[in-house]
């Protein structure tokens, strides 16, 4: 009996440039799946979003009532590890690849390392210690233990450093939907910030800002357009509207699924352009709703000039990373300058240049809150790393408990890998 026909084998993928390209694109695609399952839910989980829905699919997040069996948590975990698996498969296959030009092999390596680093970065911030899996070998992964966060961060740094060294300055193709060198750099800057390595964070974000490749969009309504000047890494979609369209109310007749909580809406300073450019107000059945409106193209045909892609990394974050790193190193003037860059773009006056360190940091925290609201889980991660989450959420979230800082490890994972231990507070 011969070999069965009709399948593309891994050997074929690693000996054909176009097949390899196709496999590579699936890495970015997978991150996109993850994003849609994460952003609105983590928004409800913190103090950003409310929901009009009464079913547990939504309310379990809103009420900080997650169970180990929560399907959305399992999806987040699954998509991130799926991206890791595919990256590992790519990195394992490349050394033995045949007929693949060296330039493509290098790019593939860098992209896979970036995707793997991005996935682990989110995993540690959502779930805490997670298994560090660097191989597709079932024997090595199926009974893995949780690895401590430091080791995972160390690996994220390694991957990003290497990705930076092999990826090119420019994007492959016209669009910003695959990682280039600066995407690795931008994520590395964020990683140093989270690790409180202020010096490296400052340097890394500075290198992105001064790369000359990116510029802040003066018009707030264009910050999330596809391939806009501020975007560093975006997720492609076919018709110009993102998977986050669910966040946006589609009609003024029925209650939106998600809306901005009053505490968030009230936190914008008067005159903040973002309060009008990124928020839409509706009144339904007599109740006023303020809704997420960063992405606007709920529905536009493809190739429209207003088409949008989900932004995972954008330049304004680099300014605020640098600002925070500078402030922490007592370079207050530089910090204020960077914060003001973002404030001024939003139509706000600059900060008082005489602020002390705590005041600068407080201003930075406020700035991050309104700049990145309901975006990639920034609020959740920021509150945690600032050590403020219990204190802040206690004000608006009656069910918030200390253990809610980490999502539960999905029950299915605990079942299948008896060496995994659940996070505290879940059972």
């Amino acid at each position, binding site marked *: *009996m011969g*070999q*069965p026909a009709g*399948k*593309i*084998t*891994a050997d*074929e*993928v690693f000996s054909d440039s176009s097949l390899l390209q*196709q*496999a590579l*694109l*699936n890495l970015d*695609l997978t991150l996109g799946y993850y994003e849609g399952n994460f952003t609105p839910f983590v928004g409800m989980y913190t103090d950003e979003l409310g929901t009009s*829905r*009464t*079913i*547990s*699919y939504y*309310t379990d997040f809103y*009420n900080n*009532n997650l169970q180990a*069996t929560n399907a959305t948590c399992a999806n987040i*975990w699954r998509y991130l590890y799926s991206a890791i*698996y*595919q990256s590992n498969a790519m990195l394992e296959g490349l050394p033995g690849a045949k007929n693949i030009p060296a330039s493509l092999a290098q790019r593939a390596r860098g992209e896979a390392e970036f995707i793997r680093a991005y996935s682990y970065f989110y995993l540690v911030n959502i779930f805490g210690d997670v*298994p560090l899996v660097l191989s597709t070998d*079932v024997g090595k*992964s*199926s*009974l*893995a233990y949780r690895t401590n966060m430091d080791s995972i961060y160390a690996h994220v740094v390694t991957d990003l450093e290497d990705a930076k060294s092999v990826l090119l300055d420019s994007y492959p193709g016209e669009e910003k*939907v695959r990682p280039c060198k600066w995407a690795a750099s931008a994520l590395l800057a964020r990683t140093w910030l989270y690790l409180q390595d202020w010096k490296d964070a400052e340097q890394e974000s500075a290198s992105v800002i001064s790369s000359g490749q990116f510029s802040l969009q003066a018009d707030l309504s264009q910050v999330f357009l596809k391939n806009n000047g501020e975007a560093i890494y975006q997720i*492609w979609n076919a*018709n110009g509207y993102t998977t986050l369209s*669910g966040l946006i*109310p*589609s*009609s003024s007749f*029925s*209650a*939106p*699924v998600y809306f901005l909580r*009053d505490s968030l809406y009230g936190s914008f300073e008067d005159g903040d352009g973002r309060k009008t450019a990124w928020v839409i107000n509706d009144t339904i059945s007599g*109740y006023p709703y303020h809704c997420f409106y960063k992405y606007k193209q*709920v*529905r536009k045909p493809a190739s429209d000039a207003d088409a949008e892609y989900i932004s995972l990394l954008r330049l304004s974050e680099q300014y605020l990373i640098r600002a925070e790193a500078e402030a922490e190193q007592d370079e207050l003037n530089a910090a204020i300058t960077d914060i003001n860059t973002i404030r001024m773009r939003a139509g706000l006056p600059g900060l008082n240049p005489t602020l002390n360190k705590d005041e600068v940091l407080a201003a930075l925290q406020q700035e991050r809150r309104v700049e990145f609201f309901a975006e990639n889980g920034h609020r959740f991660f920021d509150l945690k790393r600032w050590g403020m989450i219990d204190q802040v959420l206690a004000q608006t979230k*009656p*069910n918030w408990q200390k253990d809610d800082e980490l999502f539960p490890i*999905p*029950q*299915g*994972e605990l*079942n*299948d*890998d*008896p*060496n995994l231990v*659940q996070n505290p507070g879940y*059972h």
Partner: protein
Amino acid sequence: MRRLAIVPIVLISCALFMTSEAQTITFSFKDVTLDSVFSAIQRQTPFRFIYTNEELKEAGTITLSVERATVRDVLELALKNRPLSYTIEKTFITVRRKQNEDLKEQRKILNGVVLNEKGEPLAGTTINIKGTIYSTISDDKGNFSLANVNEKDILVISHVGYESKIIYVGDRREIEVRLSLTVSKLDEVQVIGYGETTERYATGSMSKITSKEIADQPVTNLLSAVSGRAPGVFVQSVNGLPGGNIRIQVRGVQSIAAGTDPLYVIDGIPFSSSSLTIGNSDLSFVNGAVNPLGILNPMDIESIEVLKDADATAIYGSRGANGVVLITTKKGSYGKTRLNVNFYQGYHSVSRYARYLGLKDYLMLRHEGFSNDGITPSSDPNDEYYAPDLTVWDTTRSTDWQKWFLGNSDPVTDAQASLSGGTANTHFLFGLNYHAEGSILPGDQDYKRGGGHLNVETGNAGGRFHAQLHVSYSTDDNKLLKDPSAVNIASLPPDFPAYNSDGSLNWELGLNPYAFLRQKALTKSSNLVSNALLKYRLLDGLDLKLNAGYTRTEMDMLSTLPASSQDPALGEPVNDAFYGQNRISTWLAEPQLAWMRHFWGGTLQALLGATFQQTTTGGYNLEGSDFANESQLENLGSAGDIINYGNHSTDYKYVSLFARLNYGLQEKYLLNLNFRRDGSTRFGPGKQYGNFGSAGAGWIFSKEKLFRHRIPFLSYGKLRASYGLVGNDQIPDYQYLSTYGNGYVYQGIATLTPQVIANARYSWETTHKTDIALELGFFRDRFLVTASYFYDRSSNELVAYPLPYISGPFGSYEANFPAVVENKGLELELHAALIQGNSFNWSVDMNLTLPKNKLVSYPDIANSPYANTYTVGQDLSSLKGYRFTGVDPATGVSQFLDVNKDGLVSYPADYLAMGKTSPRYFGGVGNNFKYKGLSLDVFFQFVGQDAATNLYNYIPGPAIQNYIDIALRRWQKTGDMTDVQKASADYGSEASSARLSLSSSGRQIVNGSYMRLKNISLTYQLPASWLKRWKFEQFSLFVIAENLWTLTADRDADPEVSNGLNYAVPVLKTLAAGIRFTL
């Protein structure tokens, strides 16, 4: 006096009693019959005569006088020139018709022909000279020839499926024997792998469902007809809707995670039972995974045989471990052309409803939840405690959403017509069928099926060549609801308004019943089964056969997602439609050599064959979106955007060699050996071939003199045993290969994504099967009892071995389960013809299975994915969870056992065994009553089991959904002793947290035992006089009913549909009436 035919044989064999002959006789008669002469001899001597009056009548009258003559002299004189002869043995004189003097006492050659009840030649009949080892077999023309036959010899003529005949040879040189179809159940033909046998001579374990049993049941899916009728065979409807899957498990759960389906074989061609819809959620509808067997027309089926033990299944080698279901289609028969028509009309309804609360109770419970938690329901959607069911909706209007969803009228029509007939050499059957049913679901749903069936058999006059061709084709059209979550409609709150005041759909609960109705799910399937069996006789006793066939199943699916059916709050709705086409086809060729020979007083049958099989699957899935208009959704051309999910294909090849050796000695001692070597492309290089085999033996002890004489009422007794090794290759293709397949589209390019975690190491699983059975028949087989004990041990089972997602995005990979699983049990079967009268008959059939399943060993289970699911020494269906210890009378909150006393109820430390869900026992009882033309069949099915249900998990909690009526016995005030905790409306309350633990506690295990009046049929056959007058060969009227009544221990969950109402539609109840006639 007829019995005398045998008596002389015995007498002749004895020594002559010489002394009596010395006595003399004197008499004088004129014109008397011979019996006067015999009477005189009897009076004057000790001799006694044996004769028949008929023979004497032919001899006429006699005038004779003798004086002091010897007996011999008198007889010589008296019988001279008469057609009578005599023999003297001791003091008995036997007078009989005169034999041909030339042949007397000579050995001769006897030629004969064996015919069936229709006068057709019956090949393969055994003709044995009783008490000797000499026997022969009739050829294709029914002819046989036996040398060395003595006129005193008795022939035993037997054929599978026919009544044996015993014939006294006498002076004949040529005989014609007509055999009639057997009356005893023991002698009915049973189809086995690559052959036929009868229960009497079988060495293996199998169960048969006849066409009559199928015809009596108004089932849509053929497999439903098996339910409860075959011991050891557990049948479960997964979903009550048309096309819904039906699972069959033969002798327990052999395989753990996947592939527990038996091998289905239709007229010798393997048929894939795996759903073509699996893996595509957009094209998996409210009826769940569709089983292709559902497309078969039940009425085309002559019999279903379920093969169970190693002896019966080992000939299928690597595919026999889960049992084999042989489906045999109807064939034509000799005689004038007949038209058969069968028609019924009836209706379906849901067999049972769950008892949801009415409006008043519902509202009371919800309010009570709020007051228990000290909070107030709010009408502000921004409020934590927003409760539209109490504050916004009209609380005076009530809808029974369950009845709305499941309680619709559902007519069913079934019509069948066939023509059959033929000459001695050529028979045919041609049938057409049509089946249509509505739906119990609301909206525009229905199911239609139609098809045809042709079967032709022909042979040349000499009988050397024989060919049989079979083609059947059916097609169905299933219109259903698309979204499987539509079943949640049943638990909507009674005051839920489907529409908002402005006429738009109400989406506050995330679902809307009318939206479901706007989504269409259309499945069109077609199924072709064809095969040819060619046979050529090379030599006497040596046949060359070729079985070749082709099957093809296609499914064409379309589901629509019109914008108006979507929750607008989840993003601007887009008109979407999903298109899928999937097909599976198999071709098969099996050349075989069959050899039969008689020696050593027995019959040896040998079979040698080879299998070449190829199965290919293929298909594609497309999504059309951006349709400008909802009415265009079925036309892909109108889509603004088409997303191609790519096509897929697999190619499975299978080659085998198989052999069987069967020897039956004196119809008492039976031996059966099977061997099969299989090669399958489902395994990686170096692992593709495997050997399987079995040995079976039987001893028909009732044929031994000891039993015949000592226990005369024992008409049949057989002890049989078998042992063997079989396998299972029901795993997906290419799992040993690391492959990439179509992902989605990124940057306008179709991506490639890994498809599987390859495992090159997995190999065949093996099951060792042991079977011992005692079969007894009493009073000429009026009572038949079979008791079988089976003991199966599976090791290295092929399973989708669970993997955490950290190992890859698949959740599992194909691997050998490193454990030993045992299935054993007892099967009892009873058939009793209680009353056999001229006008009234009553028979009972009963079967009972007592199965046991056990995980015998699992090395290092603690470090496996099964650590917290399976326990060595326990049943594989055992469930673990928190131990529910009751509701605290003080607080009204459910309590669970804190096993490790750490103050927390947590996984996995506090998980305990909760019970198992595999059946403890199951079976059926059927009664058949016949009175003149009336026939009544009543069949009950019963199962003793525990079942997991989710109906109890949500009560009474903060979710806005209806609860079942056990909520009425909830805790209400301090001191209440009850098992249902208090109502709660706050997600943060203690009761709400406990509610979540309930769903993984023993509370979800209920007694799932049930007894179901599975089937009733009442048939009235019109009397012969009427038939004659109207020129019908047969005409009957019937009323049939399915699932009419069910008795359950737990009254809410449907006992058969495993997960209770929340996941699937319960089985349906059918009532129908019809006619059946033959012209």
